[in-house]
């Protein structure tokens, strides 16, 4: 199950865990990504909390958590290779995994179809 937020984060639910990243659209908008400030493991977050910061040559952008939970894993590959997000924003370029999630919070997010429509409306 995959969902998207208006702020262009994606979230993938498998079992009781959520994997979070930024969408391919957002990655393209940012351009060459130069640094990712990752969240801290074991920290609790609620919807809208800042998970980290993504810096590119031309912008720095906060990553907001689309749902609440506890950070159980971060993608440390991004420390040495932030460009992974440009190459594969929605797979290898994931940012972190959350546990302790409440699936009811997913109701406020968009399905892949709805997100595609949302992107069209931005053009």
């Amino acid at each position, binding site marked *: 199950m995959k969902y998207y937020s208006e702020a262009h984060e994606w979230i993938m639910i498998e079992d009781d865990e959520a994997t979070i990243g930024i969408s391919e659209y957002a990655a393209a908008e940012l351009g*060459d990504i*130069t*640094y990712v400030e990752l969240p801290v493991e074991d920290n609790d977050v609620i919807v809208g909390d800042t998970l980290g910061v993504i*810096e590119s*040559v031309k912008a720095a952008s906060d990553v907001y958590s689309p749902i609440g939970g506890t950070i159980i894993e971060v993608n440390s590959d991004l420390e040495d290779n*932030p*460009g992974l997000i440009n190459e594969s924003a929605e797979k290898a370029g994931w940012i972190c995994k959350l546990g302790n999630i409440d699936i009811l919070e997913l109701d406020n997010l968009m399905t892949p179809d709805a997100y595609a429509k949302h992107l069209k409306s931005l053009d």
Partner: protein
Amino acid sequence: MKLIFERSKTNRRGSSLPQMDVPAKNAIPEQFKRKQAANLPEVSEQDVIRHYTLLSRKNMGVDTNFYPLGSCTMKYNPKVNERAAGLPGFTELHPLLPQLRRGGALTQGALEVIYETQRLLCELLGFADCTTQPLAGAHGELTGVMLMAAYHKARDDNDRKVLLIPDAAHGTNPASAIVGGFITRTVASDADGNVDIEDLKKYLGPDTAGLMLTCPNTLGLFDQNVEEICRLVHEAGGLNYCDGANQNAIMGRVSPGLIGFDVMHVNIHKSFSTPHGGGGPGSGPVMVGECLVPYLPVSRVQKRDDGTYTLRYHCEDSIGYIAPFYGNFGIILRAYAYMLTLGREGLKRVGENAVLSANYMRVKLAPYFDQKVDRPCMHECVMSATPQAAKGVHALDIAKALIDRGFHPPTMYFPLIVPEALMIEPTETESKETLDEFIKALIEISNLVDTDPDSITACPLTTPIKRLDETLAARQPNLASI
């Protein structure tokens, strides 16, 4: 070019110092001494002079090239000001001297410079009092914002936490508001580039601390409703802050203190001709109306009845110290010399000619570029290279092509609300011939976009280095040679 460290040779010296005339014995115990000398270069004085003279030649400056960098007012920096600022009677003066008993009498000349500069700025801009302490424009903003906070606090009006900032404002305004403890709301611009009054009204209320307005705004336009905007904010109980970064446009023509602003900063290094120094030092004096005078930072220079000057430290309602002393005195002194030279009439001529030159540029370039708002501008014109971008040549490419033609480029991609922006500010000190040459170059570039776009995207070709890999610089920062 080599780094200075790469010119180093063991035991080479570049300075001569007095002999030790006291016993060579100090009070630093061995345990606190550094084990290895700091690895500074060992070079001769001539090495130093040649290295940095060669480096200086890899720069464009106002003295070498036309530098129409919008929003930065790169006017000529008069040399008499430099001469004045170099007088030992000023450069060798210790800032704590007037704080010593009987020391004030020994700094009367310097205190008079500060007092008179403040007085002239108040006369010119229509305010009651001034502090020269802020060390740069952004520092002036922060000071002004803190004065507004102090005003509301003194009235127990503690809910006034919101500063309204138009979307056309410099990014510094919202940042200063936050550092000053406020929250910000963005007010939209209307189709003419003015503040959208209906949008403004939506935000005005009991939580309004005030409005920060850049006047003229960052589109290079004077908001024709400025008096009404100020009135509306006052009626809602807020204060009006004027960001004077663009003050050169209205020099001698508009006094913001007389049309509804309560507080304002000016960038001395822009409108008052002091050098930009490669990015500082600047100076950002803040002027205030009567309602904010009690909150000005300490110390304050005062004139006694006998014509002498003194520093006042005990001001009950003051926000306190915002700078260690009296501001960037060396810069203030240059601005004072500038105002003395120009006088009343000269200051009026500045604004007029700055606006004339920008409009001349705007009309001449209009056939080749887009404009967000097609109306007479103030001291700078904002052109949009969207027609060129559609053909694959962007504002950045045009900027680099201008470098090859001997011009410093205009400001690019600002204001953010204009796509492919090129913001051109010619200033009053540049001649019509220079403007014509620049216009000719831009038209030539624009024509090449149609006939030979690759010749533009390949620029610059004449510079010591070509376009740099900024992604590499940010991904693997190399910030020092250690």
